[in-house]
């Protein structure tokens, strides 16, 4: 009599236990990814993670794990709102698992405890991270630790309208030789202003459209500081540097550009659409942008023949103290301290898989960005793309990056404020430089070297 119920109970218990074991093994994980500066041509910042989900899920299945990964993504086209969202979400304990942002955010975000050092979660000796360019790993590092995995790289070139150069007397050979002249320092920013003025005088471009710089704040403006010999970091002490002479040269250059009439005093704040329309539509003489803009001009602004319409070069030197240069501003995949360690481990696996050369090449070619590793540069899909190849070989080796330093934002904000004030003639160049100096000295004290 008692045998059967005991047996039944045992079977029931086994079934119940087995079912709970199955439940325990089945794992549903949601990984959130937030990306800034991401538009339609940059969608592989998120898509790459989604592709990685497929690979990691298959790996889990083969290993006998029942793993379901769901990606919740959110993108911002700009930076102000994105950085505000990330910072405030993190403060309220709602940071996404993966953040795609500029490398310069590593400084402040790592100090505030918003980030996990990614080196604790991934193996840089193993594929695909062992083929990443070392300089990009450096850019993703801060204070002796690697915090992020580079997501892309780029260069920020100067562009010239070939037809307008021809209109002021340039031959095809002259146009071909221009990048070399820029690089050697023979063709300076002031030579460029003269050409922009000639284009306006020849009536091939409208007044105020001879030179069309970036219409708002961006890494690009540090290039002009470097053109006049400015350094952002003191190599010896590692401290931030503010070079008054370089800042003066840079501000004066934009004031001179205004006085020459090639750019309006009220130019800053022009909309991106106006800028894209003018430069892609061959209405501007000379401008500067990023390697990725080519993709946008072709996708949205009707550019048909990039190489036939535009010449590109480094940012010219401003004077004999400066150098021709370009800045790369890699975005990085970062791991936030939000969520559990288990989630972060999975997120890191996804980032690693998304950095696989074949996957990252999709982003690079589609968005006009550059390879993050040596193996990626050899993938035919990437290597046979003319623009990415010339940019990788011709511009990227000469590129440097802005520093990862938790205080750099203060200097940057002050630099741009001074630029706005002098450009719009609200302040004289000397007063603007003085204001920047006062602001950074008060805020940073001896954490910055003022030369």
């Amino acid at each position: 009599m008692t045998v059967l119920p005991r047996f039944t109970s045992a079977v029931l218990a086994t079934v119940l236990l087995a079912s709970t074991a199955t439940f325990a093994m089945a794992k549903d994980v949601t990984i959130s990814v937030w990306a800034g500066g991401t538009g339609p041509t940059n969608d592989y910042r998120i898509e790459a993670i989604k592709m990685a989900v497929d690979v990691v899920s298959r790996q889990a299945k083969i290993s006998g794990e029942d793993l379901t990964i769901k990606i919740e993504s959110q993108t911002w086209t700009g930076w102000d709102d994105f950085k505000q969202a990330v910072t405030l979400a993190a403060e309220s304990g709602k940071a996404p698992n993966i953040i795609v942002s500029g490398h310069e955010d590593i400084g402040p975000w790592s100090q505030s405890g918003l980030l996990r050092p990614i080196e604790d979660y991934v193996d840089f000796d193993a594929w695909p991270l062992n083929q990443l360019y070392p300089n990009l790993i450096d850019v993703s590092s801060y204070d002796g630790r690697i915090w992020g995995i580079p997501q892309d790289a780029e260069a920020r070139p100067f562009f010239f309208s070939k037809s307008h150069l021809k209109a002021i007397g340039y031959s095809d050979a002259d146009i071909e030789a221009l990048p070399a002249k820029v690089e050697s320092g023979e063709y300076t920013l002031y030579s460029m202003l003269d050409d922009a003025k000639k284009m306006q005088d020849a009536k091939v471009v409208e007044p105020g459209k001879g030179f069309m710089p970036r219409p708002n704040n961006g890494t690009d403006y540090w290039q002009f500081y470097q053109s006049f010999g400015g350094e952002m970091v003191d190599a010896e002490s590692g401290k931030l540097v503010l070079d008054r002479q370089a800042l003066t040269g840079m501000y004066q250059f934009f004031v001179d550009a205004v006085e020459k009439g090639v750019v309006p005093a009220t130019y800053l704040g022009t909309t991106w659409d106006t800028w894209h329309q003018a430069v892609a539509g061959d209405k501007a003489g000379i401008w500067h942008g990023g390697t990725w803009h080519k993709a946008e001009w072709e996708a949205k602004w009707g550019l048909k023949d990039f190489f036939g319409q535009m010449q590109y070069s480094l940012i010219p030197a401003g004077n004999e103290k400066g150098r021709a240069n370009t800045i790369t501003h890699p975005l990085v995949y970062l791991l936030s301290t939000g969520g559990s360690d288990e989630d972060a481990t999975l997120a890191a696996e996804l980032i690693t898989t998304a950095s696989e050369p074949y996957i990252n090449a999709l982003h690079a070619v589609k968005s006009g960005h550059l390879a993050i590793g040596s193996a990626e540069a050899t993938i035919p899909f990437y290597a046979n793309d003319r623009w990415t190849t010339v940019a990788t070989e011709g511009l990227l080796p000469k590129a440097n990056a802005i520093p990862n330093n938790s205080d750099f934002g203060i200097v940057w904000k002050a630099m741009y404020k001074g630029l706005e004030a002098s450009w719009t003639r609200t302040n004289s160049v000397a007063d603007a430089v003085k204001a920047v100096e006062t602001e950074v000295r008060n805020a940073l004290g001896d954490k910055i070297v003022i030369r």
Partner: protein
Amino acid sequence: MRTSSPHRANLLGLAFMTPAMVLLLGFFFLPVVLTSVFAFTNMSTATGISGGSYIVTGNLLRSLTDEGLDAKTIEALGQSSYVIDQAGLEKARAAGVDAKFITEIGERLKDRSFTSASAFERELKTLPSRPTRVRDLKIAAGAFEQSVLNVRYASRGEMEAALLHMLENPPQGAIERIATASYTGWTWTTENFKNLLVAPDTWRIVGNTVFYVVLTLAFNVLVGLFLAITTFYLPSAGSSFFSVLWLLPRITPVVLYAVMWKWFTWEDGFVFNIAQDLGLPAFNYMKGSVASAWTVVILVNGFVGASFGMILFSGALKAIPVQQLWASDVDGASRWQQIRYIILPHMRWPILFVTSYQTLSLLSSYEQIWLTTNGGPGSTTTVWALEAFKTALNNYTGNLQYGLGAAMALILVAVGLVLSIVYLRLFRFDEMMSKPKIEF
């Protein structure tokens, strides 16, 4: 005759006041108190809001060297090694590392030490039971690390204990000094106010703010008054139509209102095309010149304020005893004389209210400017409230300086309070609020 208890009346009064008091507490006093607290800190993105931790990093060692901490201590702090000892094995077990893997580490690597994580991890990867997941390998390696470098401690006590463990015979006061310097969170300071006082930019923004408030306020009050009086004299059907029309800027959602202004003033917009047809300079009037940008900023805010003034003034006009106007008609008074000698004297209270309310409202408003010129071209139309918002909460570099922004906001609160008192005295508010001298 019924009498009520004064005590009960007081309680009833209190009950009626409670919702207002709660709102005042939640939406004014509490934000002001928090702003005051933030204003005296160096809170920023880097320090975080909720408190910091204690961590010794390479940069910290460099700055401690600059500050003269002895080389021996610096060297000891910078050391990082991986020692395979019993304590490490125990720590690995506690961290949940696979038992078989721990046994292999104990058997094959006991008493060995490594100077870098990568060298130790490479060695671990040769063991048969190594974990497949990278993170598990890192956790196992971390258990054997003997260093304070880059280790984040939640409290000062933990940091000091770790320092004591690492440093043999530290110099007098070194532990406290390192622990203090290793704090990543915010600290109390009055520097925000000092920095604002000496920054040349401050006075430019103050100038912009005064210019913006005075001109917009004048527009609000004068146009509001003009509209109220003209609609007062219109037949009622027409006056209702115009009143509703002038209300549009106020009832339209702010973002939509800003977008409409963009259509109106940008390249290829309404004004642009009209100017082109008339042969006048055609450009982006919102951002293309400082004068036109200011005009747009003042008009955008002015129309919103004018409709507010119009509503209040219209209400006040209707309260004027109409007999006085009839009497003046009989006496042959002109419209202007009616306005000058009857209407305006009756409007003192609403004018006071609109002026003081709008001054405070304009001082703290930035939304319309943010959405239209965004303080540009350059930063020529940047006002105090917009600068405070950008400093504390929204800027391109993502460096949110909560402390400095809060100091700017606190100054705004102080200016607002001072102006309120000035207005109350100037318009003799107490007289207006005093009990009527005639008993009703």
